């Protein structure tokens, strides 16, 4: 369309404006291509080859992709993240929404302090927070276990194979509740007051107002947090990578798809297959995000 528009407008001033627009866009385009487009194309290129320690590099077309779709380790990693998504994301976003609504209702004392405190974990780098939780979870000397033992309660091994996924959910929730809350809270502040003042006068309870007015009004913001969470979940990396040394029996080298791709590239020396895994993962995330968006849109009816 822009090409057409450019051809139609031969007016010198208009042309100058377009040139300026591209000039202003140039820094973005350069960085975007160098940091995203070029690496993406390059890894797509890599993914169509196979390199072995003996024999060198051969073009194999889509063989790496065929392998990915039948790779039990990759698929079980995807499945694990699916489970993570179904349990953790609703819990976390529910909590975020609850806090956002509570703060917005104006009935919480020291609401800006609460807002800050909920948001602070997001400011802690992911690596640091995972390591911190790793210490807290520690079986013999971790704080949680020590407190439970001091109270003569049984201390579960929070790093065991059975509990580790839940422990990871806890870390992610702790870290992102505030972030999602801020997005929802900001959206809540933009709702015109008249909308729910009328309801209040009519005697609607706060719960009713939240359910029938506020939540529908910030649907788009909630959808945004859902999509962010889906993407974040399938890309989980810090947690398996940093918790594995604490209990390698509970976290395999293919525990999450991203961790698997990383190990394939750096441990197995199989960069080509790792690139294919990364691509399949990317497509999968795009697909899931699209389906989620689509399913909520059709319920909307008006296609907004």
């Amino acid at each position, binding site marked *: 369309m822009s090409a057409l528009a450019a051809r139609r407008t031969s007016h010198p001033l208009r042309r100058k404006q377009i040139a300026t627009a591209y000039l202003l866009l140039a820094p973005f385009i350069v960085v975007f291509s160098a940091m995203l487009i070029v690496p993406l194309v390059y890894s797509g290129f890599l993914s169509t080859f196979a390199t*072995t*320690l*003996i*024999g060198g590099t051969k073009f194999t077309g889509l063989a790496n992709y065929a392998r990915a779709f039948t790779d039990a380790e990759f698929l079980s990693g995807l499945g694990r993240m699916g489970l993570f998504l179904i349990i953790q994301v609703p819990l976390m976003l529910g909590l975020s929404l609850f806090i956002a609504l509570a703060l917005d209702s104006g009935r919480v004392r020291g609401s800006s302090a609460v807002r800050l405190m909920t948001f602070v974990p997001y400011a802690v780098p992911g690596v640091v927070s995972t390591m911190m939780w*790793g*210490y807290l979870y*520690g*079986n*013999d*000397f*971790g704080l949680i276990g020590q407190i439970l033992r001091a109270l003569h309660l049984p201390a579960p091994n929070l790093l065991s*194979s059975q509990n580790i996924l839940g422990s990871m959910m806890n870390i992610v929730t702790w870290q992102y509740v505030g972030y999602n809350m801020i997005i929802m809270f900001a959206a809540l502040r933009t709702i015109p007051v008249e909308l729910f003042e009328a309801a209040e006068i009519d005697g609607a309870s706060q719960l009713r107002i939240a359910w029938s007015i506020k939540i529908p009004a910030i649907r788009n913001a909630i959808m945004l947090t859902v999509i962010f969470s889906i993407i974040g979940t399938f890309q989980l990396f810090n947690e398996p990578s940093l918790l*594995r*040394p*604490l*209990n*390698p*029996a*509970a976290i*395999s*080298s*293919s525990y999450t798809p991203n961790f698997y791709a990383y*190990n394939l590239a*750096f*441990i*197995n*020396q199989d*960069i080509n297959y790792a690139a294919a895994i990364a691509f399949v993962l990317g497509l999968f995330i795009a697909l899931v995000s699209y389906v989620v968006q689509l399913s909520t849109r059709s319920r909307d009816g008006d296609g907004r």
Partner: protein
Amino acid sequence: MPNIDTKEVAAFMKAYPNIKVKVENVGQGAAHYQKLRTALKAGEGGPDVAQMEFQYIPSYVVTKSLVDLTPYGAASLQPLFVDWCWKQVVMANGIYAIPQDSGPLGNVYRKDILDSAGITTPPVTWDDYYTAAKAVRTKTKSYISDFASGQGGMFVALLWQAGAKPFTWDGGEKVGINLSSPEATKVMQYWQKLIQEDLVSTDADFNDAWYQGLANGKYAGWITAAWGPVFLQGTAAKTTGLWRASKAPQWSSTANAAGNWGGSTSALIKGTKNPIAAYELAKYINSNAATALQFANEQFFFPVTKSTIADPKWSTQTSEFFGGQKVNELFGGIADTVDPNFQWVPFMEYVYSSAQDTMTPAITNKGDLVVAMKAWETALKTYATQQGFTLA
């Protein structure tokens, strides 16, 4: 390596004033190798000389990432080095590194805890060790040691001591993988018994909880390499004087064999623009009598040159941490008993990672280690075939 640039490298620059050396410390273990691999893949930004552990040399030789040192006269250095250490750098018709330190396997233990369990002399055989483990478990709050669930380096060292030859490589396309030999099976059945009877713990090592376990007496000992004693002094400083060291327990009362865990070398990285200067550096810091002694006494590298091991300035040192014991002398003796014909496969990164996917869950869940060894072997053979190797 703290301060290597200010000491050994400074000595080198003094002796070779026209060569300037810049030392870059990029972390330890996996981080170090990943950075090196990335630089090699990129084809630039790599170092001239890199520190490289024995077990990874073949993995870098197979990718043609190391410079053969034969043309620079490396063969003439052989007489200076302990036989088995030198053998670790010779493969694929070349000499690919200069040895720097090694890690013969011994046993360090808390004398006070073993005493209170009624064990007054260190176990001589693995059978004695089993008996001692029972006594420690019943009479104290400790485990005799921790069989670290994810430590492939230790599994291999124990196999090495038992005379198993799990890996071979001919320098080309042929690799041998055998984790189900009678020796290997014997080792794993033994540890399985100790694990299942709850006589050893199975915590993962080199993490915070494990350091605390060493410092607080959860573990009354550690089957470890020659670098272990110094490592302990830093980790469990408050237990100074309570520790002693001995040979690792033997498979029979007449045997005298040791395995090796760790140990490193200086290797020249392909693409170096100054191979001669780089070679001189690798040679000087590791074989010059003064710097080799400095490595041993100040960086606490376990020496690999015959002259350093024989040097009373090193061997007669006593350690306060070990109650005045001459730990250097002890490990110097152990170093003589390491089986010299131990080889690796040229993909050890995968070997250790795969051990954590196969052996580690079995160890943690007190399962069948012989079955797990078979699974490990199968994974390695599958990988080797995938990578184009033929199995010997």
